[in-house]
C-alpha cells in the first residue's frame, strides 16, 4: 500500500494491522469485523506515549479466507511494520499466518477466531472471544435446558475445521448431558439441504445444530422454511449475521444462535456502542454496504471494536510502539469492552464464562435476546 494520508512523517505514526478476509468464503464476516475495527479507529485514532502524540494508522489486508494466501497477506503487514495486528475472522487463516507474525515478533489479537489451536503454543497470539469447546458446550446446555432435547441432529460442513470442530464439541457436551446425536456432513458447494433436513426429521431430532457459514445457513433456513419443519435450528457465532435474518424473515422457523454480543444490551457501554456504530454506518454508504446493506450490529463488529481497543490499551500499557513491548504488556492487559470484561489467561485466551443466546425474530428481521447461558 502506498497510501499516505495528510503529511505525517513515519515517526509520528503507529500502525495497527488488520488481518481479515474481505473476499472468499468468510469475506462477509470479515468485512463486518473490519467495520468494528474501523469504527473503533474512528473513535480513537491517536495515542499519547511518553508525552508525544502518535497518529494510529490502520493497515487492512485481505487474506482471502484462504490458507495459502494468508501467509502472504500476513507478510504484507509485517512489511508495513505494524506494531500489533488484529484478526482474523476464521481460525484456519489465523493458524496459517500465525508463524509469520510469530517469526516477526508481532503480537496478534484475535477477535472472533474460536478454534483452540489459534493460541495454543503461540505465545504471540491472543484472543478476546470465547473458544469453540466453550461455545459447543454452551449450546448443548442450552438445547437441553430450553427444549429438553434428547436427540440432536448435527450438520457440519466437510473440510471446514470450524464447522466440524464446533460440531464435535457440541456432540461431546450433548452426549455428556445424556442426549443422543445424529451426525451428517455436507460437501462444499452443496446447495440442496432438503435431504439433510428430511433425515433430521426422520431421526426424530429435537434440535438441529448446524454450525456453518452464512451461505450454507441461508440455504438451510430457506429450505427448512419451505418444508415447514418445527424443529429449532441452533448454531454458533457465525450465524449472528443479518444474512440469517434476511433468510428467516417472514417464516416461522425457530433459530437460536450463541454469540459474543447482544445488540439489545442495555449496559451503558453496550448501548453507546450500538448507537454510535449505527450512526457511523448510516453516515457512510460504503460501510453500510459492507455490513450487508443494513445497520444491524453483528457480534463480530463488536468484537472487532473490542480487539482494537485492547490493542490500544496494550500499547498504552507498554508505553511503546515496539511489538516486543506490546507483546510483553498484553498478558496483563485488561479492558472492559462492549462484549464484556476482557482479561487473558496464560494461553492468551480471554477468560470468559458466558455466552449470549439470541433468537431470530422472523417478523421484523431482528434478533431477540434469549438468555445469557453459562455452563453447568
Amino acid at each position, binding site marked *: 500500500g502506498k497510501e499516505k494520508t495528510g503529511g505525517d512523517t513515519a515517526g509520528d505514526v503507529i500502525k495497527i494491522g488488520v488481518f481479515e478476509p474481505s473476499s472468499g468464503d468468510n469475506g*462477509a464476516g470479515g468485512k463486518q469485523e473490519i467495520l468494528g475495527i474501523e469504527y473503533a479507529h474512528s473513535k480513537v485514532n491517536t495515542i499519547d506515549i511518553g508525552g508525544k502524540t502518535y497518529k494510529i494508522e490502520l493497515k487492512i489486508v485481505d487474506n482471502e479466507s484462504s490458507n495459502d494466501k494468508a501467509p502472504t497477506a500476513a507478510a504484507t503487514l509485517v512489511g508495513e511494520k505494524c506494531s500489533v495486528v488484529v484478526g482474523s475472522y476464521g481460525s484456519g487463516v489465523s493458524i496459517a499466518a500465525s508463524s509469520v507474525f510469530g517469526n516477526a515478533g508481532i503480537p496478534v489479537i484475535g477477535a472472533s477466531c474460536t478454534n483452540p489451536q489459534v493460541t495454543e503454543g503461540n505465545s504471540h497470539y491472543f484472543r478476546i472471544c470465547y473458544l469453540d469447546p466453550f461455545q459447543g458446550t454452551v449450546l448443548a446446555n442450552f438445547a437441553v435446558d430450553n427444549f429438553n432435547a434428547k436427540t440432536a441432529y448435527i450438520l457440519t460442513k466437510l473440510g471446514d475445521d470450524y464447522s466440524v470442530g464446533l460440531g464435535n464439541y457440541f456432540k461431546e457436551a450433548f452426549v455428556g448431558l445424556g442426549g443422543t446425536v445424529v451426525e451428517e456432513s455436507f460437501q462444499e458447494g*452443496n446447495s440442496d439441504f432438503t435431504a439433510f433436513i428430511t433425515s433430521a426429521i426422520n431421526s426424530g431430532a429435537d434440535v438441529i445444530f448446524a454450525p456453518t457459514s452464512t451461505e450454507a445457513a441461508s440455504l438451510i433456513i430457506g429450505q427448512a422454511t*419451505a418444508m415447514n419443519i418445527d424443529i429449532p435450528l441452533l448454531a454458533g457465532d457465525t450465524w449472528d449475521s443479518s444474512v440469517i435474518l434476511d433468510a428467516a424473515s417472514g417464516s416461522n422457523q425457530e433459530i437460536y444462535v450463541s454469540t459474543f454480543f447482544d445488540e439489545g444490551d442495555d449496559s451503558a457501554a453496550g448501548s453507546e456502542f450500538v448507537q454510535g456504530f449505527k450512526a457511523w454506518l448510516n453516515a457512510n454508504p460504503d460501510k453500510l454496504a459492507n455490513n450487508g446493506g443494513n445497520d444491524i450490529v453483528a457480534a463480530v463488529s463488536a468484537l472487532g471494536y473490542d480487539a482494537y481497543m485492547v490493542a490500544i490499551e496494550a500499547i498504552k500499557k507498554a508505553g511503546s510502539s515496539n511489538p516486543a513491548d506490546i507483546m510483553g504488556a498484553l498478558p496483563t492487559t485488561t479492558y472492559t469492552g462492549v462484549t464484556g470484561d476482557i482479561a487473558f489467561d496464560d494461553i492468551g485466551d480471554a477468560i470468559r464464562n458466558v455466552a449470549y443466546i439470541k433468537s431470530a425474530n422472523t417478523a421484523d428481521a431482528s434478533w431477540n435476546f434469549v438468555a445469557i447461558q453459562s455452563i453447568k
Partner: protein
Amino acid sequence: MEFINTYLPYILAGISVGGQYALIAIGYTMVYGILRLINFAHGDIFMAAGFMMVYLSASMPLYISIPLVIILTVILGFLVERIAYRPLRTAPRMSIMISAIGVSYLLQNCAWYLTSGLPKQYPKIPWISASVSIGASTTTVVTLITPILTIVLIVALVLLIKHTKIGMAMRAVSRDFETSQCMGIKINSVIGITFIIGSFLAAIGSLLYFTNYSTVTPISGAMPGLKAFVAAVFGGIGSVPGAVVGAFLIGICENILKIKELDMTTFSDAFTFALLIIILIAKPTGLFGEKITDKV
C-alpha cells in the same frame, strides 16, 4: 407407503435439481458442440442472472424484472462471446479455454466487488415459490414445474437444431468453420446465436434454481456449473439429449446418496465423479457421445 414417504423427498429433490442442471448443461454442451470449448464462464453467467434478479426485482415488479433478467443475461452471454472468445477464433484451443477461465474469474470477482460477497436473498416469486404437499412430504411448486419446463424447453431446442435452417447451420459450423463459410454461413452469427440460446436457458435455470435455494453468492454458479458440466460430459458432451439424461441421472443419484441409511453423504459429490469416471471408462465419450474415430 412408508417407503415412499421416506424416500419421495429425495427423489423429488433429485428430479428438480436434475432439471436445473439440465438447463445449465445444455449451455455447456451446445457451446462445446460448436466451438469445442468448455465454457467455464457458463456457471458464472448463471450466477450473474441470479444477482440481476436480486437487484432488479428490488426496484421493479416481477413481470418486468423477469423478462429483463432474461434479456440482460442473454446480452451478457453474447458479450462474453464477442469480447473473450471471438478474437481467439484461430488461436490454439487451450487459449480459448484459458480465456473462459479468465471470464469466469472476472465475473466472480466483479460480483464480489459489487455485492461485498454477502449472500443475497433471492426474491420470492409468487406461486412457484409456494409450498405444496405430496403425500407426507412438503416441497415447493418450483420443484414440480422444473422438470416439466425443462423437458418442454429441450424438446423445442431439439426441434430447432434438427429441423430448422439455423439448426442445420449450427450442425454444419460445429463440424467445420471454413467449409461452412464457403457455404455462405456467417459463423460468427451462428456462434452468437448458440451463446444466446445457452444464456437464455441459463437464465431460466437460474430463475428456477435460485427460487428453490433462495440465496445468491458470487460462487453460487461454481458448483451447479461444475455439476452441469459433469452432466454434459456424462451424457456425451455435444449431445443435447445426452446432457439432459446426464443431468437428471446426476441430480437423482446425488440426492439418493443423501439418504441417511446409505451413510454416503460424505461422498455424494465424490460419488458423482466416481460414477462419471466409471461411465467414461466404459464409454470413453459419455453415454450418447459420438465416438471420436481418428480416421487413419
